[in-house]
């Protein structure tokens, strides 16, 4: 498997994140070194408080490390300000949330088009892409439904489609099946893997579900902010 992923998309060195809680300092990440290759599916696992979501947030530029580096496509993320990081997220990344976090007053199509709108994509192009994405996730007939009119699984599919808007190459998913039943979870994971393969996506997923993690190319185990299993590098 090791020769399948020659390009490094994301690389961290000595990544550390501390939070001040009252007068004390809590170490969420205590020096993590990982390297993720293009097209890889990496699962991040660990018990509660192990730093999984913290790691994912830092990788996605949503949070800043206390020390250490995050290199994305050869660029050090610490050199960018908040607005520049937002632009990077807009253009290169897609986020899938556990609670879907669809915008409740926008339809499925409008939710999918939202990231494209942020990128000043034209209306025509947005329509075209959102239709393609809705077809891709099998929800063409639900284009004009509001999130409250969709099931949990359908909402997550819309979330996936939204994450793929703007032709994102890197997907970051935080417990995408956490709120779903096992059958739907299976369905979603299958869809994600299919999309990953068809679009050559890099997928980093935080999960506590070992069955989900079993689909990953690599599993990183975190405990108390440290990588305890799973090589930080690609196999």
């Amino acid at each position, binding site marked *: 498997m090791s020769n399948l992923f020659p390009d490094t998309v994301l690389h961290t060195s000595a990544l550390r994140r501390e939070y001040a809680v009252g007068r004390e300092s809590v170490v969420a990440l205590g020096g993590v070194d990982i390297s993720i290759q293009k097209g890889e599916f990496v699962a991040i696992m660990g018990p509660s408080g192990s730093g999984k979501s913290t790691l994912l*947030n830092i990788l*996605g530029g*949503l*949070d800043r490390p206390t020390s250490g580096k995050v290199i994305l496509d050869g660029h050090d993320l610490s050199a960018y300000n*908040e*607005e520049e990081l*937002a*632009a*990077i*997220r*807009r*253009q290169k*990344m897609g*986020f899938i*949330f*556990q*609670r879907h*976090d669809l*915008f*409740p*007053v*926008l339809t499925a199509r*409008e939710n999918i088009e*939202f*990231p494209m*709108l*942020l*990128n*000043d994509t034209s*209306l025509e192009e947005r329509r075209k892409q959102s239709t393609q994405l809705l077809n891709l996730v099998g929800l063409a007939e639900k284009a004009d439904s*509001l999130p409250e009119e969709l099931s949990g699984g359908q909402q997550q599919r819309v979330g996936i489609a*939204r994450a793929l808007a*703007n032709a994102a190459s890197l997907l970051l998913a935080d417990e995408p099946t956490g709120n779903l039943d096992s059958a739907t979870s299976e369905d979603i994971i299958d869809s994600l893997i299919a999309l990953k393969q068809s679009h050559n996506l890099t997928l980093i997923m935080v999960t506590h579900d070992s069955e989900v993690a079993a689909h990953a190319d690599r599993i990183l185990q975190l405990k108390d902010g440290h990588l305890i299993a799973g090589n930080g590098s690609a196999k």
Partner: protein
Amino acid sequence: MILPYAWKLVTRNPRRTFTYLFGLALAVGLFAGILFFVDVTARQMTATAIAPVKIDIIAHGTKPDVNITDAAPTISMQRGVSAAEPVYAADFQSAVKTNGAHPSPAGRMFAIQPSYLQTFDVLQISEGKFDSSGALISEAMAISQNIKVGDSIQLTFGGVNNPVTLPVTGILNMDNADALFATATEAENAIVSDVVIVDQGWFRANLLQPLTTAASDPNATVIPGFILLDPQVHVRINRDLLPGDPTLAALHAESLRRGVERLFPGQLKSSDNLSGAFKAAKGDVLSAKILFIFLGLPGVALAAYLSKFAAELFAESQRREISLLRTRGATPAQITSIVAVTSVFLAIGGSLLGLLFGILALYASAGAQVTAALNPFASTFDWNLFTNSAGIAFLAGLVLTFLAAFLPTFGALRREITQERRTVRRVEAEPFWKRSYLDFILIGFAIISLYITQLNGGFKPSGNEGAAITLSLYIFLTPFFAWTGLTLLVLRLVEKGLSASSNQIGGFFRRLFGEIGEVAGKSLARRAARISAAVTIIALTLSFGVSLALFQKTYTNEKQLDAQYVVGSDLRFTPALNTPQNADFTTQLQLPGVVSVTGVARDPLALVGSEKNTVYGIDVVSFSKTAYLPDSFFVDGNAPQTIDAMTNRTTNYAPGSAKQVLDALANTPNGVIISVEQAEKYNIRVGDPVLLRLYNRSTNQYTDVQTQAVGLFIYFPTSAQDSDFIINRDFMVKSSGYEAMNYFLIKTDGKPQTIASLTSDLTAQYKNVMPVRIQNIDTVVKTESSSLTSLNLGGLGAMERLYTIVVVSMGLAIFLLAMINERQREFGAMRALGANLNHLRRFLFTEALAIGGLSLVIGVGVGILLARLLVLLLGVIFTIPAHTLSWDWLGLTTLAAFVVAGMILSVGITARRLSTLKVVEALREL
């Protein structure tokens, strides 16, 4: 355990605590401010009501030999009394000018000490001076007997063998002297027109002894109303010590009156001249309270709703805290206790802060005249003035906290623990009022109520001239229903309008803010219920500021018009009686700033039939240029509608015009125009002959004068009290033989500074030349009309405007902050998806613009409607009823500008909140 925990909940959640305290303080503050304002106004109204009372208490001796010379100083030393003067009153049987042929009928002599003239503002010397060896006589006596200063009069008293002769050293204006004639019994004052004032020392030396003997004679013939000798003590109380509330003030005055009697038991019987004024003030104060509270309470209700809204900002987190406590085993009783204690802390803090806001609002809005009297360090400061109101406002704060902060937790306690821990938005059923169309029902009630009110002739003052006007609660039914119904209708229509126009709204904001604007617009339209609630609160708050500003301007204008009506023009110049007037006297009054002058002749002794009436003589040409003559004063006497109205004693007269009526008078030398009231009384129609008997001062005879009725009026700007018959001046002069004018009306450019400077110029010009009285529209006091017309609405308006700006700005800020709070995850997700701050701000601006814009438009529209309704209902409290709104463009523009500035500031503050949004925290799972 509960107390310290509750205290920590309050002190360790500063943002939540501050938001709630501020919201509550805003509502309590406005309520307290209005109540305090009402208290201050009540005090002012009480003072206004008793201002015309010149002598507070008159103590009559029960026997003619009561020693009032010793009694007066004793009485003046009593607490609450500021002065007391001994006065003797005795009726003379006749008075005749030396070498005159016509004795006057009986009159009254008052013997006073010289200090009396400084102590009591009852007698005004219009000519001459008070001399210890002479007499002052009333103007009426001077006219009827043609007596001038320097003449002598001879007075005859019952029981005194020889008449007494005195030189006339001065002439008195008795306009303010009615109180002199108060009797010892409850009978109405019997005012006497022939009055002589002498020095008490002279009286004691010449008349006291024989009059005492005569009055003490048990066999003396007692003529009802005739006073042989009445020793009196006139008392002035210290009005600074009077409570502000007229009921309490009446009790205080009554207590003083009884105290005076107790000082000399059996010797003095006192009458209180203040009780009538307090009685009128009670009605006025109650009406003012109703008016003020009605005008201000909706603002309070809106501020209270806003504070509830602010409490709801943190309701979700509070519910989750409670659910956690329950998960950990806390019982409902323990949780209830915690919430109750927390609520008490918040209620006390918020209410106290609110009382402080209320005092500050009062000081800021009530003006210097009021605040100068509100010095808490002065010994005369009435602490009771605000105690009740402070207590009521404080209680209101407790009740509001109970409703907004405490009650909702019971709902939370009843629901399942797990349900409370969820953060999913609840789906709420359509509210009851919407399902039952309560908005339309209430508006229907308002229309019906207005129709019934108008069918009953509308709200009219009582038929008796001078009677107090009162407001009853029922007249506020219409605006109450209208306001409540409109509130709900606005809510319904805005929600419906927004929901139905999602694409149009999206398109509009796309043009403003780009593509993100379209999304924001659609998002707004799909959250119509929430948006419409914010629009309704802000719009209605604004509407009350607008309606009160318009009502206040109209009210102020009507006050001005009423004053102009009383004065007759900008100034009224009244030279002393018998003052020689050159033919060019009118020209002498044409000082810089004067536009025109007209002289008015007056005959106060004229007879219509056998009744005494005052007849005025005007020069139509100059009068038309000078006097205040709105067409609304006149009716078309020839119109069948007017004739029907006069026949049926309704007031549905056909409107006339000043020009029509005055032209008719100018074209008919012996014409007379008559008030509709007198025309109805004497059954006179236009065209009828009217016989007047004018008093000729040269011959002291009456001259019969045949006139012809040529027009009718409702009001006429000569004297508000007695102008019912107006004839041509030349005709009057010819008939009466008296050429001097009674007074002159002067018209200026209308500017207050011109009027003020002319007043002082004329005063200076005639200071040592002749006694004059100069009134202008600023100095006139309406003694017979309700003090409801003299309310300081300006102060209430200023307070309401201040609160409008604050509540509108705060309302928008609270709503926008609530929006950000509720949608933190959404905004977090947007940031995660790559939205920058600019994108998020455009969402905020879209909502702010929609809410602000809709609120401004709806608020101004509803405000104008409400003002119109208020003017329709309350306009008749003035002598000249208001029928239209007066527009205060500057005030409205300023209000709008401040409101917009406040909104912009709110948006700026909430935009800052967006920039501090932490994505990771927003997206964190609980």
